[in-house]
């Protein structure tokens, strides 16, 4: 297990290096982006020196990598604050949204996949499969806009942001509004943040719901065709026991992988979802940063997302070994 964790280090170094290369080898000039086209050369030079952009590339790289080990991601150009402070502020919103999305997709995807497998090629199966295929085909931003149109503009329901503008957010403890409201027993804030969470979380989670339900279906079908299931049937066990006790447990192994890996893609999907619902998370932060050619902010956010992604993979690997004793971590 330690060895697996140690393997993360080169990947993280690689990620940081790749982001560094992309940001530094590009034609776009952050100084012009910051000062505008008509800046005086003296201003440009001063800024260049301040950001260290006039140093040789290898020196910039070493300073940047050294900074990373100190948790220093640089100063954001457009917010003028340390990137790490920005991320601390915006990351919880994204975590809350992605976690809610994952929960929704597990609650919907799991039963749908099981039903689909048991009623294979029946109407239930077809409906579930169309629902699932739609999930991976539908543009997240389109679904979001349509729901906004119906729920917010037509029905007057909740729309943008994490909480009703008239209600003050709960005292910050974790940064997750739902958790903080419960901790501070602020029920009004809890209600409002839950209502605001549902629609974006569903939009974000739909694709994952689809992926989970397809995986559950395929995995269940494979398990159900195994010899031991036939033996269980021959023993006269009830279909219920066979499916829930014997099949589902084994079918869950690959499903765990998918659920873990989904967390990373949820963070990625959050970029679009947050833009639509004005959700103040890192997805919106990174799009704003990219438009402003704010390299430190873009790099910092990308590294954060990539690290979460890689950590999710690690958790999956560990869970895998736990669920399936045949797999031993080397």
């Amino acid at each position, binding site marked *: 297990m330690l060895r697996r964790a140690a393997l993360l280090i*080169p*990947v993280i170094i*690689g*990620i940081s290096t*790749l*982001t560094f290369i*992309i*940001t530094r*080898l*590009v*034609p*776009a000039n952050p100084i012009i982006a910051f000062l505008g086209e008509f800046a005086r050369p003296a201003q440009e030079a001063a800024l260049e020196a301040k950001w260290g952009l006039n140093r040789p590339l290898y020196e910039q790289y070493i300073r940047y990598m050294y900074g990373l080990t100190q948790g220093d991601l640089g100063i954001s150009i457009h917010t003028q604050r340390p990137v790490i402070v920005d991320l601390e502020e915006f990351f919880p919103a994204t975590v809350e949204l992605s976690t809610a999305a994952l929960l929704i997709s597990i609650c919907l995807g799991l039963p749908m996949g099981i039903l689909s497998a048991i009623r294979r090629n029946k109407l239930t199966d*077809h409906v579930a*499969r*169309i629902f699932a*295929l*739609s999930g*991976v*085909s*539908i*543009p*997240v*931003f*389109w679904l979001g*806009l*349509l729901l*906004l*149109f119906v729920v917010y*503009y037509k029905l007057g329901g909740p729309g943008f942001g994490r909480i009703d503008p008239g209600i003050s957010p709960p005292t910050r403890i974790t940064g997750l509004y739902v958790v903080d409201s419960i901790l501070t027993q602020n029920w009004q804030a809890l209600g409002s943040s839950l209502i605001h969470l549902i629609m974006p979380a569903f939009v974000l989670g739909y694709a994952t719901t689809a992926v989970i339900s397809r995986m559950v279906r395929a995995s269940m*079908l494979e398990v159900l*065709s195994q010899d031991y299931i036939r033996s269980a049937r021959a023993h006269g066990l009830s279909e219920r026991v066979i499916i829930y006790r014997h099949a589902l447990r084994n079918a869950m192994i690959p499903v765990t992988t998918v659920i873990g890996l989904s967390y*990373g*893609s949820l*963070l*990625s*999907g959050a*970029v*679009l979802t947050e*833009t*639509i619902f004005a959700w103040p998370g890192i997805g919106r932060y*990174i*799009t704003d940063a*990219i*438009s402003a*050619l704010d390299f430190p902010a*873009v790099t910092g*956010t*990308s590294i954060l*997302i*990539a690290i979460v*992604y*890689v950590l999710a993979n690690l958790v999956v690997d560990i869970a895998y070994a736990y669920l399936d004793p045949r797999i031993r971590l080397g």
Partner: protein
Amino acid sequence: MKQVKFRARAPLKTPFAIRLLKNRPLAIFGVAIIVFNILQALSAPAISPYDPYNMQLSDKLRAPDAAHIFGTDQLGRDILSRVIWGSRISFEIGVVVVALSLLIGIPLGLSAGYAGGWVDEALMRITDIFLAFPALVLAIFIEAAIGPGLTNAMFSIAIVSWPTYARLVRGSAMSIKQNEFIEAARAAGEGKLRVIFRHIFPNLLSPITVQSTLDMGGAVLTAAGLSFIGFGVQPPTAEWGAMVSAGRDYIAFAWWMTAFPGLAIFLFVLGFNLLGDWLNDYLNPRLRGVE
């Protein structure tokens, strides 16, 4: 010597392709969507009722009616015509992105899988790094660095997609390499390249076909996402994602600007996903027999 007569098989009543799709309503639906899109893209100049770029400000934001079935946008352009022309761009994106990813992914995957050792190790660590980024974030990142536009969008999506192919090809090549027929070919003195191209590569075609089909849709979806947040194809190009993006500001009172181009993306991607799903079942012999 008596000649052995082979009895011909039962005469084919239906063409092969249709027989394959029999009892597969979802696959038929997928193929139908794709065919529809191909026809629409090919005949765009003939069937689109208006010039997709012609602005008629007096007609702006018109709700769908007999003259403009899908309504008009904020500049008075006919949305139906723009949706029809948009299918050309979507095919361009899908084909170019998949082709580029294959061009990078297949050779790298083959060399990693066949050579093994440090070549494999190095290439796989590189794909690890690429796969560690959520696809859209990396694509936005590259796109932001090299600047927006259709060509750059296709390039950034390809940069994000090739590792999947490299992985896929490498994994399959490694397992095929273990087969006896490869050993036999080597023992017969066939060269490395010949073994790779004559014996390994043909066995990789099914997984590659499935993945490419799914990616045709995936590429269009990612490109639409890029355009939506303003990094991909730029206005006034009639690209579906950019059209949805333009409609966003008018969503409260002109839903048709968003609804129809988005529906076009959805159906395009759904078509390729339905086909890919069926191809996967069909080309995967392990699943074919299961009923």
